[in-house]
């Protein structure tokens, strides 16, 4: 049996297996259809029905269950997450597991299309080391991503000393609804 305890390990391994059998397009399809459209349909239902409140409810449950170190910030026009210690990427780093070329892409790979369907888009950045931030806004809202500290105050992950100290370049998405919109 494969289990949920080391799920992130075989999940990441699966991305590379799929890439070898159908390229990155198959991986993207997997994130959108299997994860966003099937596995996480409870998230989709909540967010379509309740908008920002649905986002807060979904991530409060799932990030608590996964043991994440994060701060969620509610704002009248946006919902923001600052991920200081991603449990998923952290598991991979601690266990030296890296098969696929960019594990972190999986989140926007399923969240982006789901948000588009619910009427939202995403400002997002990840540093490949277990830290990232997200701002969800209505798809009609042209407001750009906030400056560091303006929405989340001192909890903004961009203000942490190790946010930019990593060797790998960060990946950024502006008002995106898919992984293909990486800057």
């Amino acid at each position: 049996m494969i289990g949920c305890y080391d799920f992130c390990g075989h999940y990441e391994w699966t991305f590379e297996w799929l890439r070898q059998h159908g390229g990155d397009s198959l991986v993207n399809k997997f994130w959108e259809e299997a994860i966003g459209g099937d596995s996480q349909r409870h998230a989709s239902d909540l967010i379509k029905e309740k908008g920002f409140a649905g986002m807060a409810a979904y991530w409060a449950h799932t990030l608590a269950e996964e043991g994440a170190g994060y701060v969620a910030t509610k704002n009248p026009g946006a919902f923001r997450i600052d991920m200081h210690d991603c449990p998923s990427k952290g598991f991979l780093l601690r266990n030296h597991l890296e098969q696929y070329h960019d594990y972190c892409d999986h989140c926007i790979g399923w969240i982006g299309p789901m948000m588009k369907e619910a009427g939202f888009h995403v400002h997002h950045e990840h540093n490949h080391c277990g830290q990232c931030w997200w701002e969800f806004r209505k798809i009609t809202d042209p407001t750009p991503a906030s400056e560091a500290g303006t929405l989340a105050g001192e909890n903004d992950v961009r203000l942490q000393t190790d946010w930019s100290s990593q060797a790998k370049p960060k990946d950024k998405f502006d008002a995106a609804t898919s992984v293909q919109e990486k800057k």
Partner: protein
Amino acid sequence: MIHPLPYQDQKPLGAADFYFAINATFRFIRKTLGEEALKTYWSDLGRTYMAPVTQQWKHGGLSAIAEYWQAFFAAEPGAEVEVNVVERGEGPSSQMSLGVDSKRLAVILEVRTCPAIRHLRGNGRDIDPGFCQHCYYVSEAAALPAGFTVRVQGGNGSCRQTFLPREQAEDPQDLHDIREAS
């Protein structure tokens, strides 16, 4: 001492909602690449991702297999599983005195409550009908290079999985012995 689980997390239990993704992955691969590709996926996973497990089983024999499954199911939320070591001339025993392997003939997992089926069913998810077959294909691929084989009987919420030395297996796995999940 080597931990029986080669990949370790900081929390003692996995997040049960990940079973949704495991189930959805099987369904996706079956739909997009076909049934045979799904079996290949399971076997590749057992042979490569689980290679560190295979190494532990190769060096530690049935004792290592028993230790692995004890630790594995202890970390799966909602699992009710008894791990028995069958010794020569004895029935199943749950009293494992790990360390002496020469008399042991098999490790039997009595899966009273499969944690994945339980969680999927409890949340009203459509379960991939071939879900329970993954246990055979993954474990068989992990066990073979270590000199062992597995036979699965039952499924759809509870089953028996028997790990034994390859030379002691009389017949191949009959896939009809593994029930469809629903």
